[in-house]
């Protein structure tokens, strides 16, 4: 019974949202507001039960991890701007967050992203099949010319200008592929909704 009610609610909300394609209307606005409200409520519950309680309050209150007071104190300082006299104290949590994020990200980003990606452009042009050699050449040229486009310390004229123009062509191909995939993604989402309506709600497929 609950499942049936859920399906009906989901189906009617889906139709309410799609009704916007005809024109803006009250049903669309109701569905939109329900979505915003449910999302806010959902995230409040997730933040409490998955972040704050198990990581901060539960260890502090039931296992005696008294030092959890420090992250709680730093977190509370995020609200410092609400009191103008101590608003400067927000710098403490912001500095802490930036410091940790940079320490974790920079080392791992260099090791896990920049170096392997750079290494992947050192490709053989001989001793491989003709097609593979051509593909490797395209990758190398694509990297070089795109980097030339992003070299801004000299005006893009002469050889540098030609290189930058070829770089633009490589990027255009990349944007085209991304756009094609984006269309595919949006159509897939629509297919998912139609499948839900025809299969779960109406039961015709």
């Amino acid at each position, binding site marked *: 019974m609950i499942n049936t009610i859920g399906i009906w609610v989901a189906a009617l909300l889906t139709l309410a949202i799609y009704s916007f*394609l005809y024109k803006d209307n009250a049903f669309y606005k109701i569905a939109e507001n329900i979505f915003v409200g449910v999302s806010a409520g959902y995230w409040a519950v997730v933040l409490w039960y998955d972040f704050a309680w198990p990581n901060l309050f539960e260890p502090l209150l039931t296992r005696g991890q008294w030092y959890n007071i420090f992250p709680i104190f730093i977190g509370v300082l995020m609200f410092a701007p609400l009191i103008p006299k101590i608003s400067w104290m927000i710098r403490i949590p912001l500095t802490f967050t930036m410091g940790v994020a940079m320490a974790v990200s920079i080392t791992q980003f260099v*090791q896990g*992203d920049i170096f392997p990606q750079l290494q992947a452009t050192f490709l053989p042009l001989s001793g491989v099949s003709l097609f593979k050699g051509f593909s490797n050449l395209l990758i190398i040229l694509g990297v070089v010319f795109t980097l030339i486009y992003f070299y801004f310390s000299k005006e893009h004229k002469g050889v540098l200008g030609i290189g930058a123009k070829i770089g633009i062509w490589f990027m255009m191909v990349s944007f085209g592929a*991304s756009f094609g*995939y984006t269309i595919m993604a949006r159509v897939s*989402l629509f*297919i998912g909704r139609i*499948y839900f309506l025809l299969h779960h709600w109406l039961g015709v497929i």
Partner: protein
Amino acid sequence: MRVFDYLSHLDRRIIFLLVALAVVIPMLVPLNLPVDITGPVKNVYDKIESLPEGSVVLISTDYDPGSEAELYPATEAIIEHCFRKNLRIYMMGLWPAGSELGNMALNKIAQSYNKKYGKDYINVGYRPGGQVMLLSLGRNFGDVIKVDYQGIPIDSLPLGGGVKSARDISLVITFSAGDPGILHWITYFHARYGVPICGATTAIMAPQMYPYLSSGQLTGLLGGLKGAAEYETLVDKKGRGLRGMDSQSIVHLLLVGFIALGNVILVYQRRRG
């Protein structure tokens, strides 16, 4: 030409209607258009095939209902393959709702293969913390995961107690709709601990992943609903991926037609001045 003038002022709601019909009709009357298998999808299949029985595959459901249409069919197809190969599944999620979606697929397919919770598969639920959590996880699972999604102590479950660190994981498969997701697994988990990573991503994310396939940081990839349809073909189980492919192909043809027609009208109008 009058037709071109009419079309250049066409009410866009007619286009919406045509797209809707292009999706609905092939669903009601399937055309069963062929689906070609691409290299990145075959790589995922081959990787799973190459694992010995009993290996532990970590599945991370890093998406929410907004991407369910694209990633849930892939989740089902890959879980199906893993259970068919008698691999053990350790499921978790970097997105809160993803864990619940993964659980639906896991429980549904586990039943049909008589797999037992705790021994053949577990779900430890949503794990917040992004990159910091992944770095800790690879070093010692016990630091991050103490209970499963139902609150059962992880050490009391045979599979949970047996997985101590990244060394006990043979393969990570992430179903990813954004951040945190596949890039975190590649940059933080694969780079630090060397565990092979396969992924299923939304179609929007797929082009970004090709450099990682090329560098070998990513072993295989399922891009969007098309990737799911290819995988369903490989495991010979028709699901939502294959069901949606007819509609997807017809809509793409329709859109290509619209783009071509739009350009023809533009050239005509320019010539006419």
